[in-house]
C-alpha cells in the first residue's frame, strides 16, 4: 500500500493554492526568460552576422531553461519541505503519528517522497520548453536528460536537507530560517570564499587550487550543470568524471545524513 504520509502530502499539496501559484510562477518565469533569450540571440546575430543560426537559439534556450530550472528548484524544493516535521510539532499532530505502527523511517520517507514529487512535477513542467528548444537543434537528448536528472537529484537532496533541519526544530519559522541560511551558505557563500581563496593565492600550486575546488565548489548543486554546459552539445562527462562523482557523492552523503537526522528526530520524545 502507498505510504500514508505520501498519500496525505499529495492530498494536501494538490489542494494548496500556494502550490499552483508556485507552478504558475515557475512556468511564467521560464517563459519570460526563454523569450528574453530568443530576442537576445536574434538581436546578437542580426547585429553581427545578419544570418541567424537556429542551433544557437536552441542551445541558448536549453541551457537557460536547465539553469533556470536548477535555480528555481533550489529555492522551491526547500520551501516545499522546510518545516514539514516542525509543523507537525507546532500543530501537535506528531503525537498521533508517533502513536501509530508507522516507523519513523516510513514517516520521514513519506514526507520526503511527497516533497520530491513536487520537485519532479516542476521538472516535468520544464519539459515543453526543452522540447520546443530542441526543435531549433542544440545539445543531444542524452545530455539534456542527464542534466534534468541531476537537477531532480539536487532537488531530492535539498528536500532531504530541509527535512532533516526541520526535524531539529519545534517552530517552522526557525526551520525555514536555518534551512535558508544553510543552503545560502552552501550554494552561494562557500563558492565565493573558494574564489577569494584562489584569488588571494593565485601563485599557489595547482594542487592547492584543486583542493579549494573540492572543498568549496565541486559539491555545489550548480556544479554538474556548469561542467556539462562546458561540453555544450554532447554528453561528455569524461573529463569531469572525478569532480562530478565527488560532487554527487557529497550530495548523496548529505541527503542520507539529513534523512537520518529526520528519522532520529521522529524518535525523540514528544512533549
Amino acid at each position, binding site marked *: 500500500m502507498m505510504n500514508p504520509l505520501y*498519500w496525505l502530502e499529495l492530498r*494536501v499539496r494538490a489542494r494548496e493554492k500556494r502550490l499552483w501559484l508556485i507552478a504558475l510562477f515557475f512556468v511564467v518565469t521560464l517563459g519570460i526568460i526563454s523569450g528574453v533569450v530568443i530576442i537576445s540571440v536574434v538581436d546578437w546575430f542580426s547585429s553581427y552576422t545578419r544570418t541567424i543560426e537556429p542551433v544557437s537559439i536552441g542551445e541558448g534556450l536549453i541551457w537557460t531553461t536547465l539553469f533556470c530550472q536548477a535555480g528555481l528548484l533550489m529555492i522551491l524544493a526547500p520551501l516545499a519541505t522546510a518545516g514539514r516535521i516542525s509543523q507537525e510539532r507546532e500543530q*501537535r499532530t506528531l503525537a*498521533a503519528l*508517533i*502513536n501509530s*505502527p508507522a516507523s519513523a523511517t516510513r514517516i520521514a520517507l513519506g514526507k520526503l517522497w511527497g516533497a520530491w514529487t513536487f520537485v519532479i512535477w516542476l521538472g516535468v513542467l520544464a519539459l515543453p520548453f526543452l522540447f520546443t528548444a530542441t526543435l531549433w537543434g542544440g545539445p543531444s537528448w542524452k545530455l539534456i536528460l542527464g542534466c534534468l536528472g541531476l537537477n531532480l537529484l539536487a532537488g531530492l537532496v535539498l528536500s532531504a536537507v530541509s527535512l532533516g533541519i526541520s526535524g531539529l526544530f519545534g517552530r517552522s519559522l526557525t526551520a525555514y530560517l536555518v534551512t535558508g541560511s544553510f543552503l545560502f551558505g552552501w550554494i552561494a557563500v562557500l563558492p565565493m570564499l573558494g574564489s577569494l581563496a584562489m584569488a588571494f593565492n593565485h601563485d599557489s600550486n595547482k594542487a592547492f587550487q584543486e583542493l579549494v575546488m573540492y572543498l568549496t565548489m565541486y559539491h555545489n548543486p550548480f556544479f554538474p550543470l556548469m561542467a556539462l554546459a562546458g561540453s555544450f552539445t554532447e554528453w561528455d562527462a569524461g573529463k569531469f568524471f572525478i569532480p562530478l562523482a565527488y560532487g554527487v557523492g557529497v550530495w548523496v552523503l548529505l541527503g542520507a545524513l539529513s534523512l537520518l537526522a529526520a528519522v532520529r528526530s521522529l524518535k525523540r*520524545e*514528544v512533549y
Partner: protein
Amino acid sequence: MTRVQPTSLNLVDIWKTYPNGIEALRGVSLEVKPGEVFGLVGPNGAGKTTLLKVAGGLLFPETGNVTCAGVDITRRPKQAAKYIGLMPDPLGVYTDVSAREYLEFFARLQDIPFDQISGKIDHTVELLGLAPWLDDEVETLSAGWQRRLALGRVLLADTPVLLLDEPAAGLDVSARSELLAIVRRLAETGRTVAVSSHILPELQQLADRFAIINQGRWVNTASGQPFFTRAELERGFTMAEWCLRCSRPDNAVAVLARLGFNAKSAGNTLTFAAADDAAASGALKAVIADGVDVYEFYRRQVELTEMVLQILREDNQSSGAANNHGDRK
C-alpha cells in the same frame, strides 16, 4: 463494538524530569485492569498528561517501566501503538483535510488492509455520529466535533488500552454526556481505559476507580490509600454522613447527642455520621420518638469535586509546611 483481548496496563515507579528541571512524575505506580475506567484527577501541571504520555510511549521515564500485554513499553516505545491508543490534549488534528480523509489517513497509518478501511471508517463514523460532517474540512468543525474525530482516530486502531487526556474538554453538556457514554461502552467491551479530566462531575459518573495526582505523585485519601472506587467515594471513606431536615433541630441534636452522635445543625437541617444503615435508622427512630417532625432524611452523597478540593488543599498545606520546615533547617 468489537470485544478485545483483555489487557492490563502497568506502570511501576515512574520518575520523569523534563529538560527544564521540572520533576513531572515522582515514583508513580499504577495498574489499570481490563474493562475498567480509571479516572485521573489533579490540578494543572500535576503530571496527568505526562503520565499518559509516558504510558503511551511518547515520553521516556528516567526510571520505572510501563508494561502492556507483557511488552515493556519503556524499552520498546514503538510497540505501544499496537496496544495503546492515545488521545492527547491538545488534540492536534490536521485541519486542511476533510474528516473522511483524516480518518482514512490514520486507517492507512494503522496498516488496516485497504479493502477494510471503508468498513472501519463507516463503523467509527456511525459510533461517533460523525456522518453529517464527514466531507467537511476539519478546520470548519467545532471543537467538539474535532474531539470526536480525534477519538475516531484512536478507535480505528482498535487497541485494547485507551488513554484519553481531557476527552470532554470544550464540549457542551449533551456532547459530553454522549462522549462519556461511548467511553463507558468501550470499557464494557473489555477495553482498559484511563481518562484524565477536569470535569469532575462527569468523571465521577464515568470512572470505576480514581486517583488524585499532585506535584507528580499520588495523594493519599482519608483511607490512607491513593486509589479509591466510585462506591467508596459515594459511601464515604470511614462513616457515611446523614442529613436530617426537621421541625426542631436543637431538640434533634440533643437526642442524637444522648445516643452518642456528634450532630451539627445549619438552619433546620442537621448532619451526623453513622457507621452503618442500622445506626442511622436507630437515630432517626429516636428523633421521631422525641416528637420532632422529620421532613427529609438522606445519606449525603460525597462529590468528587468537593473531595478533590479538600484533599489537594490539605496536601498543598502539608507540602508547604514541609518546605517551610526544610527552609528553616
